[in-house]
């Protein structure tokens, strides 16, 4: 799976969470790094922050699709719960949009569901 989020405190926590449940985790902190990592090693699950230092997180989804990479599930983890953000994510092809911080139990349960 690929976790795209600019804050290392958050990627650190999410990496432990998913690695401890037996997943192989790749982390990217920018749009550019995410597109590179996702293209060379296509993830089954993509967790995505929307605001990245070099642009819009949804750009990662669009670029990966262009490169022929379509994860089983693409989930936007966002700090904004306004209807516009939600619509934008769904329009870009996200499976689901979740408000940070998602309780870990819920996140793990959902991950099982997405990848089933």
């Amino acid at each position, binding site marked *: 799976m690929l976790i795209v989020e600019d*804050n290392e*405190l*958050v990627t*650190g*926590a*999410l990496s*432990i*969470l998913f690695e*401890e*449940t037996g997943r192989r985790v790749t982390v990217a902190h920018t749009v550019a790094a995410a597109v590179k990592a996702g293209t060379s090693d296509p993830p089954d699950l993509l967790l995505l922050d929307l605001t990245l230092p070099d642009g819009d997180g949804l750009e990662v989804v669009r670029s990966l699709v262009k490169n022929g990479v379509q994860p089983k599930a693409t989930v936007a983890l966002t*700090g*904004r719960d*306004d*209807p516009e953000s939600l619509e934008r994510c769904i329009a870009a092809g996200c499976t689901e949009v979740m408000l*940070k*911080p998602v*309780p*870990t*139990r819920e996140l793990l349960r959902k991950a099982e569901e997405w990848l089933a």
Partner: protein
Amino acid sequence: MNLVSTIPQSGPHLSLEQRFAALESLYKQAIAEIADMRGRDALKTQYLSNISHDLRTPLTAVITHAEILRDGMLGPMNERQLDSIRGIISGGRQLLDQVGEILTYARGAANQLTLTPSTFSFSDVVGQVLQMNESLIAKKRLTLDLRVPKDLPPVFADREKVAHILGNLFGNAIDFTPVGGRVWIGATMRGERELIAEVGDNGMGIAPEHHDFIFEEFAQVDSSASRQHHGTGLGLTIAQKLVELHRGRIWVESELGGGSRFYFTIPNSKDAR
């Protein structure tokens, strides 16, 4: 700026034209100062919005790490360690709620809040709010009265925002009522056109001269450092904003020592914007 004291008075030395010119210059100065203050206010609102976003991120990390430990993913925890970790999680979530309130306030102040209406049961919203406050009610051994009729017709409004309004009012009711006191939630539909909800308590009450003040942003009747009731001071401002977004009304009936009854109305019509 004290305009009144600087208005040129009539006197032997100033002609009518001179006094008029002086007034005009003061007027321009006032307009410029108002524009400047509005600009600063908008900046402050934007700052609040940005800082709330930025505060959420490290909080996310704190809570996620604590939940990983709580669930024993990095090895078993003993009961005392678990208690301590649960404390970190509750504290983090409480802080997150407060940051969320600041963000909602900032969006409201910048007119960025919109309604997503649907048809729902107000009783369900009451149930949801009660569930969130269950442990607090039990801890303070409060008596709870529910005066929501079983056959209350459904409401067409923004469910989440109505829950937010009720949650803020009920949270205050619990907070400002002493141990062993009484709190209640009531609702009635006026002619199917308007929902009237009531949140009451027999707590400390609010002096009539503070009834308008408490709805103002950052207002706390006791704002001293030693105050007993903490919070963002935004709960009622947000409740009022969300009620007004629905084109409803919100008001309080209370006196010092006589408990408080907060009321709000939500027009039950598809005209609500």
